[in-house]
């Protein structure tokens, strides 16, 4: 097995954050600045003002990722350059900011915060670092405003995808969200769906789990539900050119889900006559996955089977920097893989999906 040293790696999941929410004020009207200072920006997370689970590391981030100049992990472009881009030979990195903007219950406030966050990404990150690209964050519970946000930035080379979260208030493929998918296709942008969300629903479909560990593994289950919804509602039939990237959702579940979907579809197709292809054919045509956090079976070769079943052209490297469950590109493929497959995984697939 060769282990070709790759440079110009694509990292499809980087999380920049603000030092404080005041960083967004240059792009907010006086009304929203005062609103935030007075009332905050509540999301659908009952009983708590922040995330529903305490994370295992501060800010859910690596303890060695605090910028030397202060501020939370991921808040310094200079330090991100050094610790991520330079150290790990990242040549193309996609920003997915999980700052409180998407999922804010006051929909007009959510739209204002998303607009500000998009300016912040483009003008303080991408404009100063040619290796980075941004994601258009949208106020997804207001699909028309989301479509308007996508149209506003369409054609701006700083942005390479539209960002949604996996737990919206209705299943991802529900027709109420279709303006988002339509606008993304019109703009020629993939829709990245990152695990997590502020929907009011628990991460599990059997209620609120007691432990953070359950939330960590539950993301895979919610992403499966979202993918089933996208397929069965006919989103991919309506927009054959739509590219969906499932981010931080796991993917080893995908082959069995496709087998199960096809099996059920063959007996129930009269219920969903709008589907012209097998469910697995839509998934293979329209969906990609990012790798982190990669499952760690005792026998690493089992992962090679998963990559082969799903296809090396479908999975893209992501680090999740600066979050604590970061994957190091030098160590992530711990099983025999050809140089050709590794180049697809680390570079080629992202170039194809994001047009980089």
């Amino acid at each position, binding site marked *: 097995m060769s282990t070709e040293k790759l440079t110009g790696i694509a990292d499809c999941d980087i999380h920049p954050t603000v030092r404080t929410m005041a960083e967004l004020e240059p792009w907010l009207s006086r009304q929203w600045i005062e609103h935030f200072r007075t009332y905050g920006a509540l999301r659908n997370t009952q009983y708590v003002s922040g995330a529903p689970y305490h994370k*295992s*590391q501060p800010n859910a981030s*690596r*303890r*060695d990722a605090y910028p030397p100049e202060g501020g939370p992990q991921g808040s310094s472009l200079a330090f991100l350059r050094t610790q991520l881009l330079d150290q790990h030979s990242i040549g193309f990195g996609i920003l997915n900011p999980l700052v409180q903007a998407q999922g804010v219950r006051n929909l007009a406030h959510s739209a204002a915060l998303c607009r500000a966050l998009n300016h912040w990404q483009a003008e303080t990150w991408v404009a100063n670092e040619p290796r980075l690209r941004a994601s258009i964050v949208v106020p997804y519970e207001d699909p028309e405003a989301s479509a308007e946000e996508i149209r506003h930035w369409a054609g701006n080379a700083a942005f390479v995808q539209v960002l949604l979260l996996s737990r919206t208030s209705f299943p991802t493929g529900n027709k109420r969200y279709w303006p988002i998918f339509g606008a993304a296709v019109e703009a020629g942008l993939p829709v990245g769906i990152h695990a997590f969300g502020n929907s009011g629903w628990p991460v599990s479909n059997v209620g609120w789990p007691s432990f953070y560990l359950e939330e960590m593994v539950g993301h895979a289950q919610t992403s499966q539900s979202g993918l089933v919804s996208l397929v069965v509602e006919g989103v991919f039939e309506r927009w054959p050119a739509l590219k969906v990237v499932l981010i931080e959702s796991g993917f080893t579940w995908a082959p069995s889900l496709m087998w199960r979907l096809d099996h059920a579809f063959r007996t129930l197709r009269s219920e969903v006559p709008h589907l012209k292809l097998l469910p697995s054919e839509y998934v293979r045509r329209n969906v990609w996955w990012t790798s982190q956090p990669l499952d760690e079976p*005792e026998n690493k070769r089992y992962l090679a089977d998963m990559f082969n079943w799903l296809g090396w052209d479908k999975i893209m490297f992501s680090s999740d920097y600066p979050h*604590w*469950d*970061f*994957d*190091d590109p*030098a*160590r992530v493929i711990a099983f025999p893989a050809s140089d050709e497959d590794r180049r697809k995984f680390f570079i080629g697939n992202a170039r194809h999906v994001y047009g980089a």
Partner: protein
Amino acid sequence: MARHVVAPAAEFPPGTRRLIDVDGRAIAVFNIAGEYFAMLNRCPHNGGSLVEGVLTGLLQSPTPGEYEYSRQGEIIRCPWHGWEFDVRTGRSFCSAVRARARQFPVHIEDGQTLVEGPYRAETLPVSVEDSYVVVEA
């Protein structure tokens, strides 16, 4: 293994830690309540920098709902994925995995018996009466 000076003991008090370089190898050295421990600063799981981890205790549960917390401050938790290692043995407590942080013996020696370490002359000038912290690596 050669012996290398880490620091004068007086300048390396309990509750502190240092990251040293020995022939290109990064080694984390801890003073935990007066005892010194050293480990290769590379988590065997995925390479995280152990010196930046939290020192915690050993939390065990003989049965769901019962908890036993012991050995406070003797378990290093990796700052990335949270793997935990015993600073005394380097062993991980997750029985399903055989990861083991590589450790090195550390002790205090009198000044006269020291092998000249890479840091002593340049950065840590002290008199022979003092004790030095030495790492074998």
